[in-house]
């Protein structure tokens, strides 16, 4: 009983993540890649993403505070961030990155700062949400999760 409850909770949570636009189809595809040979593929990738992205965020922050601003470097850093974000299907992060890049193009430091704050917020939210999601998944167990990924 509790088991199926948990399962329902996982599905609901994922659906929420999708509905609120945190994730996109790419995340589903990632989950499809997960099979017996790599049971924790998604989590692994997501971990990788957060590790990588924290480093990138630090770099971006430094680049913003540096004077004079090197918008080109800023742009390429954000581009990287956006690339890895889109790989795991982090939709909101990705969108915000696009906004950031647009500000870079306009050379608007103020915009970049605002955008960066948003990115950080989105990033943190996503991290927290995904962590709880994976936690739930671990409780459900690998077997069930594979089923749940099939929409």
């Amino acid at each position: 009983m509790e088991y199926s409850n948990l399962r329902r909770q996982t599905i609901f949570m994922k659906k929420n993540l999708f509905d609120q636009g945190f994730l996109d189809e790419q995340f589903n595809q990632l989950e499809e890649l997960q099979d017996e040979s790599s049971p924790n593929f998604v989590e692994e990738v997501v971990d990788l993403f957060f590790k990588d992205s924290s480093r990138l965020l630090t770099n971006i922050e430094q680049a913003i505070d540096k004077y004079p601003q090197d918008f080109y470097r800023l742009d390429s850093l954000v581009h990287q961030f956006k690339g890895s974000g889109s790989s795991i299907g982090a939709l909101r992060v990705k969108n915000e990155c696009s906004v950031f890049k647009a500000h870079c193009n306009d050379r608007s430091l103020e915009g970049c700062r605002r955008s960066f704050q948003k990115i950080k917020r989105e990033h943190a939210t996503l991290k927290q949400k995904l962590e709880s999601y994976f936690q739930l998944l671990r409780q459900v167990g690998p077997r069930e999760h594979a089923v749940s990924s099939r929409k």
Partner: protein
Amino acid sequence: MGVGRGGGGGGEAAVRKRWRVKVRLSTAAVVVWVLASAALWAGLHWRFRRAALHKAEEGLVCMCEERARMLQDQFAVSVNHVHALAILIATFHYDKLPPALDQDTFAAYAARTSFERPLLSGVAYARRVVHADRENFERQQGWIIKTMKHEPSPVQDEYAPVIYSQETISYIEGLDVMSGEEDRENILRARATGKAVLTRPFRLMSNHLGVVLTFPVYLVDLPEDAKVEDRVAATAGYLGGAFDVESLVENLLRQLAGNQELVVNVYDATNHSNPLVMYGSEIPLGTPSPSHTCMLDFGDPIRKHHMICRYRNRPHVPWSAITTSSGVFIICMLVGYIVYAAWSRYDNVKEDCRKMEELKKRAEAADIAKSQFLATVSHEIRTPMNGVLGMLDMLLDTELKATQRDYAQTAQICGKALISLINEVLDRAKIEAGKLDLESVPFDLRTILDDVISLFSSKSREKGIELAVYVSEKVPEILLGDPGRFRQIITNLVGNSIKFTERGHVFVQVHLADHSNLATEAKIEPVANGMNGHKDEASAISTSISQNTLSGFEAADSRNNWDNFKLLLSYETNEMPYEIDSEKVTLVVSVEDTGIGIPLHAQCRAFTPFMQADSSTSRNYGGTGIGLSISKCLVEIMGGQINFVSRPLVGSTFTFTAVLQRCEKNAISDNKPVLLHPLPSSFKGFSALLVDKRHVRAIVTKYHLQRLGIASEVVGTIELALSVLSGRNGSSLTSMGNKQPCMLLIESDSWGSQMDVSLHATLQEMQQNDRTHLLPKVFLLSAAESDKVKTIYSVDSVITKPLKASALAACLFQALGITQPSNENHNDSGSLHGRGGSGSLHGLLLGKNILVVDDNKVNLRVAAGTLKKYGAKVECLESGKDALTLLQVPHKFDLCLMDIQMPEMDGFEATRQIRAMEGKANEQADDGDDDSGSESTVKTAKWHLPILAMTADVIQATHEECTKCGMDGYVSKPFEEKQLFQAVQKFLDASMPS
């Protein structure tokens, strides 16, 4: 922008400067031209004037000479006569004794001969009397010698009293001529020379200017060279006469032409410095004018005379001198003006042309900008719209309340409409920009039409419109062309037709152009060769059908009614001579509807984008009116034409032609993805009986049955059908031979209310009588939803209209209980649909060595995971440099996927170096294997690792850059299955040997 504007300003300044120079030049040219013309005028005028003057002078000389000669001649004649008179006197006065002359005789003689001396007013003879003889003389004569002043003459040496005189001057008789100074001198000179002498001109008693002529009379005949003394001694008297020069010249001149214009003066120029006027006014003329002087010889050696002629008036300038030169001047001015006008016009035109060019450039630029803007904006709108639609899709997948679902669905429908509109706008922009390229792939026209039909089937069913398709048999099964665009045109037209049709039908027909033309031509002739099989039924039903169209409603284009259609079919069944071999196939597609039609005033702009008949149209029916214009563009790109016939409130028929290429079925190469959905062939050899009272509709049904391989026969009513089934009719249906039809298809409108009962009864009866081996299944063809109808009518199955072969097949399978053969075309490896696609991707990538290079660990991991899932062996690297070392020439990789943006060495640079490396290796291999001949080429080709860029933004510029630096293509990131397959396919397919 700023630079451009600056350049423009500079150009403008230059233009202005050039303009100013031009103006200055033209002003100078005008001035020079006017001056030159004026000079020409002056020159010409002067010349003419000169010529005129010269002529006048010549005339003057001529006239003057003439006058002088005449005067001289007349004078000479007079003098001669005086001479003769002198001799007369000498002869008859002195030689005769007593003298034979007296005053009376002389006077009479002189008077009677005066015509000989027109110039002399009169002649008189004075006798020489010496003083010694005076008294004697006076006595003899009876009067004393008087002086000229009528006084008794004083004592003189000698006297010369006039003894004889002409009556005209009788008043001088008895006067001593020698008393006058002039006369005396004259007399002395005359007797000394023996010649006629003249006095200087003086006023005569008649108050005319004149001269007196004196001629000596000698007593003896003297020789020419006689001495003066002898002459004086021999002198007996003197003959004198007064020349009235004035009247003389006047008379003379009066006789001659040109008298009026000439002023003639005659002078005695003995004293050269002070010539005396003999004739003419002394007053000099006001202006010096050309004159001519002629010498006159009056026979007096001492006195010199001359004549001066001049024109009375200054010779006027001849008109021609003014008119001609003025004419030339005007012509010059005109020519100048013409040249100037032409020049300035040319200049203006050139300037205008330049401006035009500029405007054109700007307009073109604006057009390009517009197209680009359209493309960009549409693209930009499309992207988020796709997001919206996707989200709506997902939303619809969730559990929603009915109202929520309704809202979401509405939103989705609107979104889809918007997307399709944007796509259309984008299409148009693309067509306008000339960027639309047509594909050339084999496709099945009939399938496409079926698809279009099914697209609109629900709509047509809702509206109760009959929607049907007919494709002529002669249209090849597989055609080469652009199926997407073809479908787009037909979808547009059919969509329009359905939108504007409330009742009746929408009918799509496809024929070959040759047949269609033939039918139209033959239409004039009486239709004699109709299909024989239909004659009896046609006569039976024709009363009930007013219009022989698909639905019975009148259509705008009468060409599509039954008569014509029949004709068309007959041409197709009879082998018409037309080129089977020709590569091109021209199709005529017509879409006929019975809708509201297009108002006459709007017909001319039916193909103009965004033009609907009027604003009420869009209000009532919606739409933007871009569809037709796109269709027109597409048709024109396909080498066809589109036009329509429309009658308001009757309907419209759109007809377009398209040139496609014939394509033999077996000629289709395997690796080309062919959009074919072969129909099941399980029905081959089946036969059907169709009950339909409308011929056109029956033909359509027949066409679909035929596609399934079912032979069919048409009858008009159920009764006829039953009689055919039971064989009572006796009319064996030729096409079915002896075979009993295994299905009976009945149009719903042929179905009477009690029909099913009687039908079943008959069928039962037939079975009981064992006249048929198999009871035919009964199908009802109905436009309504199948479930409802099936319960109302007791039939085996209901086939829902609009008809299309695949749906028909499915329905027949179900009803006849035949199991549908599993997908017959399972071997199509090219198909990208469904799971087959990923399966083939799996097949492609299985066991392949793939190198993935990306500095982004997350991306790397995901890409690797995806590829591994398809069975590939993946190696990951994080920088371009590592890739270089790993890709030293003998390597095992089949494919390399590389990120473009990487630190240190980006994808482009890495690829460039890899290609360089390969090139070197190939060269070496080439050198090494030079001896081994043919094998070397194989090896040379070996080292070319397919490298695909991984990029997040798939735009044209990146693609071009990819190919420029030696990459073979690109894949989107994150991977899209279909795109990945397409990109990878061509590289891995070729190297399939493993």
